[in-house]
Structure formats: structure tokens, C-alpha cells
């Protein structure tokens, strides 16, 4: 998809507050409008209905907030990437804010395939709508990590299946957001990721309190490559040319 003489850019953004109720697709459309408002030199696809060359990372569920979402966009001319985040934020819906941008190397792997790990902060409620105390969360977390398998029932393409999500559950920690106990989940995306809601279902099979999502924030996403764990803005950033970095 990347052209030979293009200027590929990766943007990191946050999605917080009321705007968390718009979909992944709505965010994509908002970015396309923001690019036009800022008159960025967008590259377009060929064909009957040319679209800007923009690709997004893993979808975020409607209702979830995020500190670390990413998109790649192909431009036709160089721009000052350091100033890009500040230009984009006012052109985006309130609550969506660009927090960084880098020029990418040519033919960087797509975000969708690159991201290997995501982290969530999950505030929970029990079946009566009350906050779940620390000791219950601790028991759920240690129980889950001690299990060999954690099965969840899924419906995929109209078919029901029972999947084991234990392999993608890298860690669970109990932390606090102010006074509220929260779960910090670290989940692998391969071979098939799990949603926070599915993890809670699995945890609830251990503690049985009716564990439900109250507020979910994706706090970070990572690319693991050659043993290193890289933040997506770092992973495929265009390296400054030799002369510039030699000094």
C-alpha cells in the first residue's frame, strides 16, 4: 500500500470522555476530516472511489477509553511531524487528542499485524453494581494465573465455540485508581486476542460475584520484535540520516 516516494506517518492518539461512545469507524472518519481541515497532503488510493491511505490499529470497543491508539497515514510530501499532533488535536472531536507522530520507514509493517501486546486498566462492578473489593480481585487474578486453561464461550460468524484464553493472558495485577480497585490486564494479541469482558467472564468463573466492566481504558500497546518490547511510535520510525545523528 505504501508508495515509493510517499511520506508515511504514524500518529498516536488518546480517546477519553464522552467520545468513547463513538466507534472505531467513526474515529477513522473524524481523522479523515481532521486531515482535510489541516489540508495535509494526503495520498489517495487508485480506483473508482479514491480513499485517503489511512490504516488503523486494533479496534477499540465502543465505550472503552484509550491512552494509546495508533494510525498510519500516507502523505505525498514531507511535513513537520513534530508539529503534527498539535495541529490535529483542535481539528478532532473533543476527547480525541493526538499525542505524538513520527515519520515511518518505507514499507513499515502494518499496525494490525505488528501489535503483539495490549494493556488495559479495568474498573469493575459486581452483580449488584457495587465496586469489587481488593481481596476478591486478588483471588480472581491469582486463581486465573494459576490455571492451565481459562475457557470462554464465544460466538464467531454465527457459530458458538469454547476458546481457551489462558495463553494470551500475560499478567493480571490489582491496582488502584484513587480509591477504586482496578485490574491491570496485559493481553497478547496472537494467535487470537481476548477482550477485557471475556477475561472478566473467565475471572468470574473463579470468584462468582458477577464481575462486570465499569470503565475500561487501553493504557498501552506494544510491538515485540527480536526480544525487544517497542512502543509503536519507536518501532518503525524513520531513522535520522547518518550525518544528522553523527554529532
Amino acid at each position: 500500500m505504501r508508495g515509493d516516494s510517499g511520506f508515511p506517518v504514524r500518529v498516536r492518539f488518546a480517546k477519553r470522555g464522552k467520545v468513547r461512545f463513538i466507534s472505531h469507524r467513526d474515529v477513522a472518519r473524524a481523522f479523515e476530516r481532521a486531515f482535510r481541515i489541516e489540508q495535509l497532503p494526503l495520498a489517495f488510493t487508485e480506483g473508482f472511489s479514491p480513499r485517503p491511505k489511512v490504516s488503523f490499529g486494533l479496534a477499540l470497543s465502543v465505550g472503552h477509553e484509550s491512552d494509546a491508539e495508533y494510525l498510519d497515514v500516507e502523505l505525498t510530501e514531507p511535513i513537520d511531524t513534530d508539529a503534527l499532533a498539535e495541529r490535529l488535536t483542535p481539528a478532532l472531536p473533543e476527547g480525541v487528542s493526538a499525542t505524538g507522530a513520527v515519520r515511518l520507514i518505507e514499507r513499515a509493517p502494518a499496525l494490525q499485524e505488528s501489535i503483539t501486546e495490549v494493556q488495559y486498566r479495568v474498573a469493575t462492578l459486581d452483580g449488584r453494581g457495587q465496586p469489587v473489593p481488593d481481596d476478591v480481585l486478588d483471588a480472581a487474578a491469582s486463581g486465573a494465573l494459576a490455571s492451565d486453561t481459562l475457557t470462554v464461550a464465544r460466538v464467531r460468524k454465527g457459530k458458538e465455540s469454547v476458546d481457551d484464553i489462558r495463553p494470551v493472558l500475560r499478567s493480571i495485577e490489582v491496582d488502584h485508581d484513587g480509591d477504586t480497585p482496578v485490574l491491570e490486564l496485559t493481553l497478547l494479541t496472537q494467535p487470537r486476542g481476548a477482550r477485557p469482558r471475556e477475561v472478566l467472564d473467565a475471572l468470574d468463573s473463579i470468584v462468582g460475584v458477577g464481575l462486570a466492566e465499569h470503565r475500561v481504558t487501553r493504557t498501552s500497546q506494544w510491538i515485540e520484535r527480536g526480544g525487544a518490547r517497542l512502543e509503536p511510535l519507536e518501532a518503525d520510525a524513520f531513522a535520522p540520516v547518518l550525518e544528522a545523528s553523527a554529532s
Partner: protein
Amino acid sequence: MSNLWPRVEPLLARVEKPARYIGMERGSLRPEHRPSSTSWLLVYPDTYEIGLPNQGLQILYEILNERDDSVAERAYAPWVDMTAEMREQGVPFFSVDDHHAAADFDIVAFGLAAELVYTNVLECLDLAGVPIRAEQRRPEHPLVVAGGHCAFNPEPMADFVDAFVIGDGEEAVGEVTEAVGAWKRSGRTAREGVLRELATIPGVYVPSMYEVDYDGPFIAEVRPRFPEVPDRVDKRTVADLAEWPYPKQQLVPLIEVVHDRLNVEVFRGCTRGCRFCQAGMITRPVRERPVDQVRTMVADGLRRSGYDEVALTSLSTADFSGIDGLVAGLVNEQQGCGNVGLSLPSLRVDAFTVGIASEIQKVRRTGLTFAPEGGTWRIRQVINKLITDDDLFAAVEGAYSQGWQRVKLYFLIGVPTEMDEDTLGISHLAREVVKIGRQYTKKASATASVGGFVPKAHTPFQWFGQNGVAELHRKVGLLRDDLRKSGAQLRWHDPAATYAEGIASRGDRRIGRVIERVWRAGGTFQEWSERFVLDRWLDAMAAEGLDPEWYVTRHRTEDEILPWDHIAAGLHRDFLWDDWQEALAAHGLPDCRWTPCYDCGVCTDYALEHVVASAVPPAGGSQGTGQGLGFGREALTSVPVELITR
């Protein structure tokens, strides 16, 4: 005002499309409510996706927020899943801008663009905790106002609405604001005082200031209750659109909505004189926006919104003076950030239109829509949609030959004097269109969309008895049989919904009780086919002792007092009656923009003039305007319209 967001937020995880309820569109405002300002809640009583793009609401939103003495927020009818949650949790109807309770506003104003939303108005008021019937409201309750095209027959909603604004709202909302502001300053005493005050504002109709006497099923008299209340309420008309370049900051929604693009109104009003078209009759005269202002509004709007598509809106955009120059200019002006698409809704049926369309759709030519409305030349003279078969064939030939593959044709069925040969003219045209298309591409397809005709107030057809459900079904059946294996598709609107629309469109005050019963039986979102059940309407009519056939399928006589006769769109009643007689004789009437005035009454009575930049018909000639077509004046016999005398 209390902010309801903390109580709304928990509900959103449990409803579909939660973004309907969050506001935050680019261009939206969170106005500061001061005690001295009159607060308006502008409500479009349908889903967010349908209501958000409504230009009338957006225009008033800006005008009211620009004034020093008023503020405005917006609301849309919550979908049924959300209303269930709201009722369960006791969360009242709220604004999307700042999540304020509707009942905290001074004025709750509804835009009425279609009759089948009436029950949603009741649902919104009830959810707001405001008594649905005007007579039950106390001084602390908001004033309930309504406007929009449906306000031209306000009577079915007279029980529920305190005051209607008839016609263009740009100026009238200011006068209403001042009257309500004065009432607030005087301590907000009895509602009757402010209602009497409102009733003296030109264009404002306060139903409770009028008594209606009946003579059996007929209206005997409509009497003002006080000397200062006018016998007749005339519509408001903005004389010069150039003074109202609104919306200046069109709202850009976060979720997909209908007409999701920049919309720039290029003119208001239409004098083509299509006799079925209420919009064309009640919005006269034609007022064009200066072409330079259109260009500026397009350029500013695109820059501000980030949209990549703009629509030039009006009732017939190809009639705009200098449309070809405007289109060429817009197409050639690159916005620096990819191509901008241009769409022209409401196009005429002629070769010129196809020329414009090919200018703007250089790349993607999939579908093109025309609205011949009638299947035969005779019936098109009856309805005054003066396009010949040859106009249509030239237009579709132009379309297919230039790369379009799908043509969609809109038709009305159940119009006055319609005989089966007229109905079958629709399938004949559709088959011919497919035949023309197949000369150019094997993929050629045509769709005929037919809708049952509902006569509307202030049109020459206001006296016509609508076709009943069975008759419309029969006509749809004729077309379905005739179009089998023809290559043309047929789509049709549910005749049952057409019937209910007939009850609400030409109803009188007694229909208010029917609307209330339909709402109490759960009949909200009646324009959504999955929510519509005709029996709710028929049961409600029966319970009120009203005969639906009397309201829907009965022809009215010249001397009958119509429920909306005390509301004036400026059209002389005898002009409309004469035009009705001309229709029955299948005589067309040319567009008055470019021919001598035939005195419909609007310009002469209101001292208005057409604002048209060009003194000659638009490029492409007089097609569709009826000029030079040499109408046959012989009277037709055997037309199936009987005028019943009582």
C-alpha cells in the same frame, strides 16, 4: 440547570448507538444559560441520524445562540431502547449539547417535517415530565412551540402545542424570544397572558386562542377568542436569503447520519407548480441566494468541516440561475486535499441535468435518480409535472450512454383522475428505460419506486379524496404483475402507512385525541415500518367515534371549511380551487418565474417578489416548465373523480 450527564452515562453501555446521545459535534455549542436569557430546546422528533442534518433546526440554533437574549440547545427523539432505560431509571428527556433536562428550558420547540412523527412529540414531552396537553400545563412548564412544513395544518397537534410558527422561522424566533423574555421578567404568571401576547406576533398561531364550532362532522366556524387575536394567521417569509447565510457552522456529527455532507441552500421556494407538492406551494416565492454567497458558503463550510462532499440544496437545484457556471467552478476548484464531491438533490428530468451530472460525477457513475412522478403525459398534466416521455427518454439515454448503469425513477400512485392506463404507464416507462439502457450496457437496470399520494393542505389537491389502502394495493399489484421479467425492479411504500399519514395530514382538532391514543398504545416512530401498525390508528379512530374514510378518502367540496383555512400560505383559495379544476381537466400551468404572473396571491398579498438572478429560464431550455408545449384544452370525460355534495 442541572446537568444530567452523570445519570445518562450509565445508560449508554446498554443501548445501541450510544453516540446518538453525546452531542459534541463540530460546530455545536454549550451556551451559558443566564437568568436574563430565554432558553430554547430545539427538538427534531425522530432519531438523531435523521434529525441532526435538518437545516431548519441548525439555522435557528445559530440564530438563537447569536442573540444576546436567547440560548438554544438541541435534542432528538431517543430510540425505544433508550426511552425504556430512561423511564426505568427516571432520567428525563435531555439536550445533547449539555445534557440539560428538557423541562428546565423556557421553550421546547419541535420541527415537524412529517406527520408520522407526531406521536414522537408526545413521547418527548412525556419523557420530559411536561404534561402532553397544553391545557394541563402550568406557568412553570416550558412553552411548547412547533414549526416546519407540517405546521401549515396545525390542527391535529393543536391539543399539544402552545404556539405554532408558520413559515420561515429566522425572524419569528426573535419576536417569540422577546415576548417570552418579557413574560419571564414579569414573574412568569398565568400562561394565558403570554399566549395572548404570542398570538399577536405575525406568523404565530396559538390554537388555544381559537374556538372551533362543528356542524356534525363539518367545521362550522373557527373563532378567535379575543379581539386582538387575528382571524387568520399568515405565514412568515424571509424576503432575501442573502441576509441569512446560515448555517455558518454546519454541525459535523461524529456518527453517520443521513445527508452526511455539507449542505448549502441555494434557493428557497419553487414555482414549478407541481400540484401534489406541498413544499412548492407553501414556500413561495422563489428566493435565490447570490451565487457569490453560495461560493463563499461552500468554501468556508468545506474548510471548517473537513467534509469532502457538498450538496447544493433546494426544491429543484437545476433551476438555480447560473447553475452550470457554479457547478463548473466548484468542480474545478481543488480544495488542496483531495477531490470534493458535489451532489445536486432534486434534479429535473432532462438532458441538461444529465450534462450537469456528468460534469460532477466524473469518476463514479453508478446510479442516477429522476422523478417523473406520473406514468402518462396526461396524468403528468394533471399533477403539473410537465415533462414529456421524450424528456425522460433523452435523459436516461444520456445517462446510460455516459456510463451510468442504474436509473431510479420516482412515481406517485393514487393521484387525482388516475386510471389504470396511467398506473400502467409507470411500468411502461420503466420497461422502456431498461430497453434504452440495454443498448449501452448489459448491466443496465432501472428501479421504479412508487409511493401512495397523500393530499396536503394548501395545495390544489387539498380537496381530493385519497386512495384507500385496498386501492393502492391493487395498483401496486398491477405494476408488480406488469413488471415481471421486465428487467425493472419495483419498490413501493406501504399503503397502510400512507393511509395513516392521510389521517394526520388533513385532520382537524379531533384527530389530536387519536394521536394521543396511538401514542398511549405504544405507537412511536410511526414512520419506521418495523414500528408501524395501522390497527393502532384505526382502533383509535373507532374509540373516538371518528370515521377514517371521512378524513382520508372523501373528496371535499368548494364550500367546505377546511381545518387549515384560518392558516394562510399566501395562496388565494380561489387560485387553488381553479388550479384543482384545471387539474381535473388535465391542463398544465407554466412556471411563473419566467412567464407573466397568474396571481396565486403570494407575491401580491405579501408584497414579495421572486429573487431570481436570471430573467430567462435556466440553461437547457424550458423543459419541464410547460412553456411552448401547446396544451390541449379539451376537457376530459370519464375521470374517476366524483365530487360529493353534502
